[in-house]
């Protein structure tokens, strides 16, 4: 591990200024991924600016039925917050199905959005990786890639975005609040995650020193009976091979509203726009679910070890939709 200097920030403008003025520095929140990557020599900041004492940990119920979640609220707190459990079960479930109990107590919401990919070539500083060293190549393309993405990939990067929580946030049209030296701005969460294209090193639209301060979750009545389905080899403490966040609004068996996002299969938390378009106004039946799943996965690009993920994702979507219908008592 490199020698690193450490500063503890006491207010948001000070934290933002500290990182903006020192290009080699990084924010430190829960550190559950960042410290690993420091030890692995993947991240090489010369200074860490600890933001854990900033007043950004509140979870606020808004009068309109939405939520504002502070960037430093811990995953475990948000998962249990009554407003989240009642109004956005998919978000609560996605948090509880992520990581381990110990990590959820440490990891922050803002940090979760900023977590890095789990590609074993990204995490090995001597392997070629365009995300770590732009232009060095992608070792995963011809390497071990069972867990890698099949949607949103490019010839430069096929690393899967690992977050569960962000999948729910994408389905919920959450908005990320950020603060920089030039002031504050908001970024719709779907725009917060960039596709790799030919710049896989660029994962977010943040400028250096911009800090996530909060996540807004707009009101969404149908999310009260939503769910997050996560499929993985073992029962806990593993990233998704495929996952789906679903909310449905039904009227007489017809889909009047749908939110669907996929995890574990794409280079960013994947809003399933094609599937949503397929489903809107259609009967909530198995045939439609299968057609929607097929439409979403149609552009999938698979490789030998992850070819199964296209079928797995389709089935995950169908199961999640079927379960969502059952949740509404309108089977």
């Amino acid at each position: 591990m490199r020698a690193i200097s450490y500063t503890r920030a006491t207010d948001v403008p000070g934290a933002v200024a500290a990182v903006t003025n020192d290009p080699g520095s990084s924010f430190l929140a829960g550190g559950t991924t960042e410290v690993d990557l420091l030890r692995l020599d993947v991240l090489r900041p010369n200074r860490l600016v600890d933001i854990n004492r900033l007043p950004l940990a509140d979870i606020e119920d808004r009068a309109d039925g939405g939520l504002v979640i502070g960037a430093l609220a811990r995953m475990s707190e948000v998962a249990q917050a009554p407003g989240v459990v009642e109004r956005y079960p998919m978000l609560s479930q996605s948090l509880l199905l992520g990581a381990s109990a110990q990590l959820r107590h440490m990891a922050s919401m803002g940090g979760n959005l900023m977590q890095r990919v789990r590609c074993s070539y990204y995490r090995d500083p001597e392997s070629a990786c365009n995300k770590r060293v732009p232009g060095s190549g992608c070792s995963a393309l011809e390497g071990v890639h069972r867990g890698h993405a099949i949607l949103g990939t490019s010839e430069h990067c096929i690393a899967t975005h690992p977050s569960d929580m962000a999948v729910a946030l994408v389905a919920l049209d959450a908005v990320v609040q950020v603060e920089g030296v030039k002031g504050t701005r908001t970024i719709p969460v779907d725009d917060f995650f960039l596709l790799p294209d030919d710049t896989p090193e660029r994962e977010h639209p943040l400028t250096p020193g911009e800090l996530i301060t909060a996540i807004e979750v707009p009101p969404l009545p149908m999310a009260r009976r939503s769910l997050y389905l996560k499929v993985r080899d073992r029962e806990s403490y593993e990233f998704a091979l495929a996952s789906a966040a679903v909310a449905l609004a039904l009227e007489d068996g017809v889909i009047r509203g749908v939110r669907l996002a996929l995890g574990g299969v794409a280079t960013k938390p994947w809003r399933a726009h094609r599937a949503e378009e397929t489903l809107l106004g259609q009967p909530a039946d198995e045939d439609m679910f299968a057609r929607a799943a097929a439409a979403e996965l149609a552009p999938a690009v698979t490789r030998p070890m992850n070819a199964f993920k296209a079928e797995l994702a389709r089935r995950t979507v169908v199961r999640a939709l079927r379960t969502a219908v059952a949740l509404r008592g309108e089977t």
Partner: protein
Amino acid sequence: MTTGSTLEAVGRPLDRVDGAAKVTGSGRYAAEFTPPGTAYAALVGARTASGRIIGINTGAAEDADGVLAVLTHRNLPKVAAPPHLLPSLAGHAAPGESFFPMQDEVVHYFGEPVAMVIADSYERAQFAARQVHVDYARDASVTTLDEGRDQAYEPEAIFAGFLPARSVRGDIKAGFAAAAQRLDATYHFAANHHHPIEPSATTAVWDGDRLTLYDATQGIVASQRTVAALLGIPPSKVRVRASFVGGGFGCKAMIWPHVTLAAMAARWVRRPVKLALTREQMATSCGHREEQEQRIELGATDDGRLTALRHHKLSLTSPFDEWAEPSLSIAAQAYACPHYEGVYRLIRGNTMTPTFTRGPGETTGMFALECTMDELAHRIGVDPVQLRLRNHAHADPNTGHPWSSDGAQECYQRGAARFDWQSRNPEPRSERDGNWLIGKGMATAGYPVFFPMQPQRARARLYADGSAVVQAGTQEFGTGAATAMTQVAADGLGVPLHQVRFEYGDTDLPNVAATVGSAGAGMISAAVHTAVTALRDQLIAQAVLDPASPLHGVDPAAVVVSQGRMELRDDSGTGETYRQLMERHFMTDMDALGSWSPPAPDVPYGLATFGAQFAEVAVDQDLGLVRVRRMVGVFAPGRVLNAKTARSQAMGGMLWGIGQALLEGAVTDTRDGRWANAGLGEYLLPVNADAPDVAIEFVEVPDPVVNPLGVKGLGEVGMVGAAAAIANAVFHATGYRARELPIRIEHLL
């Protein structure tokens, strides 16, 4: 069997004597010894599976803050003699491979140490290690079976020469000719890594020409002998200590290069040196279970009696050693099959030498056999439990000798009852619970009884106040040995448990072989029992000769001991305490050395521990998910020394079976031979959420042959058959026959 003592403590579910130290963190592991001035070593692993070092630039590392030395093949001292692999149960030097790194510029496997950086802190050593730049001339490599199939060959012998590559009984052709049923199945097994919670570590401290090693090892004596041999110094100059070891699973059963490298580093910088492997280095530093393929051909009559068994294995070994885990051993003995042929074939690849890995061989071999047996049962319509009972070998089929003890049939019967096996509908896909298909499967467990090759020793000392210290040069790596040996000592000496302290983890104590091959409980208890009963007999003899003793002149064989008192078996009023005897003679203490000689290798008995495994799984076939809902294991390990630690040991093995069946598979990137999933985030082990209700029972069979207390060992049999029971349950749930481990989502979609 013991005389003169009653077993009051042995068998009880005593809490671990080291439990409080473990959970409070006061127990110190090898990397937690930090003598003044300690420096830290970090290894640099090769980035190619095959080739030569053509350039190595250590300048940046040498210039890094706090660096004391950078050692490579150019300056590392040569070992005194090239190592030769020898299993550690032999009690001698036990290098894990016939190779020592950094002796020349040739690279044989990915991760092979090519440089060692020593610095004044762990972080500085790790940082500087990344600044060592190595250029390689890369050669073509073989790191998987598929890459080397055309180079497969049948060696003379495997396993350091101890096992012939080919073994035959009867006439295999005649056996198949007599068969009405034939099955032929090939199973593929991914390589496995051990991943105990404590990564291997060694702290080396020189004092003049004497070396002390704090080592994470399953065999302190093996560490001592191996390092002494490689450094060319007498073993008497090397002391190895290991008070706490955080699991082994076989990766600490042999002595790997990092142990000696730590000693070399400490000598080089003239300071104590601590060398702790990283989690990722655990995949390339202490062996693994080799990738392998096993083919089973089975011939049977229409009522399921085996007539022929052909069991062939193909596996990957290193450039140095003809090693294969002995997968064919217990699978050849489990059933009364008259005609048998077993063959090991090897491919020399660019990996380190594979090594013992929890249930080494037995787990894979019995997986192949037991899945095929399940297939036979299904095909001929015989209940799987009945098929096993029908074929159970009442004598060792290899030799015709009777088992020293058996118990298999009772294991099947009790397991079936506990599991409610009879309620199972034999038809696959016949039970459902919502989205889940429910399946039930079973398999035979078996594990050989291994003996060490030389006498095992322990020392017992009784103080006049009635307290006792019993010592043996063994180590406790989670098996419960320290607790069980306290119980054995208390009963043998006839003193209360709280009066006994068992000391271990130091080669200055009497010599015991490495704890491997499930032999620990048997051999350590034999040494301890021999020592404490020798001490007891000394004291009884003294009392009998003492005119002042109430026991004067009695037959020593008529004296029993209990609660620190010697008394007549038939007249408990006649006797005296140890304390009374010793105080009368102005003795402060007395001690005795016990030496137990294991049975000869040609003892005329079959030697094995048998058991039966049952598993219920739920399979969500839409999503490819398999979840184990409950397991039942019944084992006949001879005598159980501690009901609680024995249960934990068996349960741990059964849960490892979940890993083997469903999760664990080390994957190689064939381009450079790198293990692509070396971390615990990627190499999947079962977690608590995967662990179902596990029920365990023991059939305690008396065994007068194996050792004084009749302990056959329980270290590994709990895992054997567990994966097969799960795979058979998956078949029962779905109709899918697993031919590849681990069974993954993609297999079931």
